[in-house]
């Protein structure tokens, strides 16, 4: 299927994070652009990060979302409040939504209360907010849980609530740290559906997630980055950085059913992970 790259949505340059004297991640560079496909109303961007444990994926995500300060580098995202083409702004805490592995929610707020809270800084009127919440609850299959507290929700329901909450509050960027870890087959399908819904609801929606399941990454993402310890001048370094990038769109593997080529790619990614 023919696709075209438009505006830059996410730009990361020379990003480094260190705790005291220990460098965790260094020199991370990436650019993600809006992609338009022929004959498809909206195509959100899905980006996967894979890599062995302790390579700095979570640190990168926390830096990306502004939860931890960076030592150097810059992170720019598309400024949707500015109508100028390619208008960008530096990331601040809350600009990029973040959903952790536990799908954390406010334990004292019902689903509706939580969603209303996440919309508190928007310019919508109360009626508009109520309508928006109602629409999302219906689309995301959460109508029956609107008055439930997090401890009364299933894993999948919690996850969907957490995603909508971040979507309402952030600027169309969502980072999910290992959203599939510990989920059963049914819940994995629910998360996949959430990704689909996000992609369909806006061209600019950009989902960034990390996973240890390479096949799932290949199935869902259009770009896969491998984070690992690089080898510089024959010496293996102890910090994490992007060691490989696979653009499935350019490789002709995006938006199509799983085939032999996907399997080959999976083997290649695993090899990259093992050597880094």
């Amino acid at each position: 299927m023919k696709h075209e790259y438009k505006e830059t949505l996410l730009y990361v340059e020379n990003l480094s994070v260190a705790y005291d004297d220990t460098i965790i991640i260094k020199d991370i560079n990436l650019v993600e652009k809006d992609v338009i496909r022929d004959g498809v109303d909206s195509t959100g961007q899905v980006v996967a990060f894979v890599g062995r444990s302790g390579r700095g994926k979570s640190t990168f995500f926390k830096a990306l979302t502004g939860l931890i300060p960076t030592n150097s580098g810059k992170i720019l995202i598309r400024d949707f409040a500015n109508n100028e083409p390619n208008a960008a702004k530096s990331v601040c805490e809350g600009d990029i939504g973040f959903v952790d592995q536990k799908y954390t929610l406010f334990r004292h707020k019902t689903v509706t209360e939580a969603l209303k809270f996440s919309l508190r800084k928007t310019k919508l009127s109360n009626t508009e907010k109520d309508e928006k919440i109602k629409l999302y609850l219906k689309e995301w299959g959460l109508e029956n849980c609107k008055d439930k507290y997090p401890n009364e929700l299933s894993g999948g329901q919690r996850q969907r609530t957490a995603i909508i909450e971040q979507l309402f509050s952030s600027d169309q960027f969502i980072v999910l740290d290992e959203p599939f870890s510990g989920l059963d087959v049914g819940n994995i399908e629910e998360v996949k559906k959430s990704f689909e819904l996000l992609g369909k609801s806006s061209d600019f929606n950009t989902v960034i997630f990390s996973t240890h399941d390479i096949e799932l990454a290949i199935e869902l993402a259009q770009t896969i980055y491998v984070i690992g310890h690089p080898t510089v001048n024959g010496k293996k370094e102890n910090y994490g950085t992007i060691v490989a990038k696979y653009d499935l769109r350019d490789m002709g593997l995006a938006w199509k059913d799983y085939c032999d080529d996907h399997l080959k790619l999976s083997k290649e990614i695993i090899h990259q992970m093992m050597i880094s």
Partner: protein
Amino acid sequence: MIKILTPFEKISKQNRTLILLGWLVLLIIIWFATTSGEKHLFPSPAQVLVGFKDLYKEGLVVHIFNSLSLCFISIFLATVISLLFAYAWPIPVLKSISEFVTKFRFLPFTGLSFYITMVVHEARAMQVWILVIFLTTFLTTSLIAVIKDIPQEEFDHAKMLKCTRWEVLLQVIILGRIDYVIDVIRQNLAITWMMLVTVESIVVASGGLGFLIKNSDKFMNTGRIIALQIIILLIGLGLDAGINFLRKALFRYSKI
């Protein structure tokens, strides 16, 4: 049979009740058996029953009411003060003060009550403030422990929803843990109840269960002492169950 003697074996609810009843019956038998002779250290059930009757005639209900009202007033005041210290704990400039307050729990009871007697002259107020000061140190310690136990993810989640630092404090700590305050009170109730009886026996002027114990103690009336201990224990257990019920009834999301 082997099952109830094997560690970690699961038994039915009915069997659990039967075991509990069995132990209770055994305890009562031991009580009857060891107190049936002429000389015995522990009072017999009959003496305890007489103790109950005497206490009732001496206005037990009024004394219980006095103790309970002292308990509630002190807990209320101590909770309000402790909450202020606990909520101030995340603020860097006030953190040391909150932590300093928790250290006071190692201070002896008698020394401080001496100073309070010099400042406060009315018996009831004296009891209240001795209890409030001591309770505050324990409650603050427990409340700070609750805050320390909040997972980092909850703070990050609030920050991701564009909460200011004050909103994080309000949403995650104050509103998000309000049910824990009740649980902290429940957990500290045993120590409150114990201190309350002691305070009432030190400052005897305004009655209460501690005053009754002190009186019984004077005349070596062991039947009365045990009767009072049973009453104190039952009220304590009742308060514990009541507070737990209140937490679950008030906060549907509370699953501690």
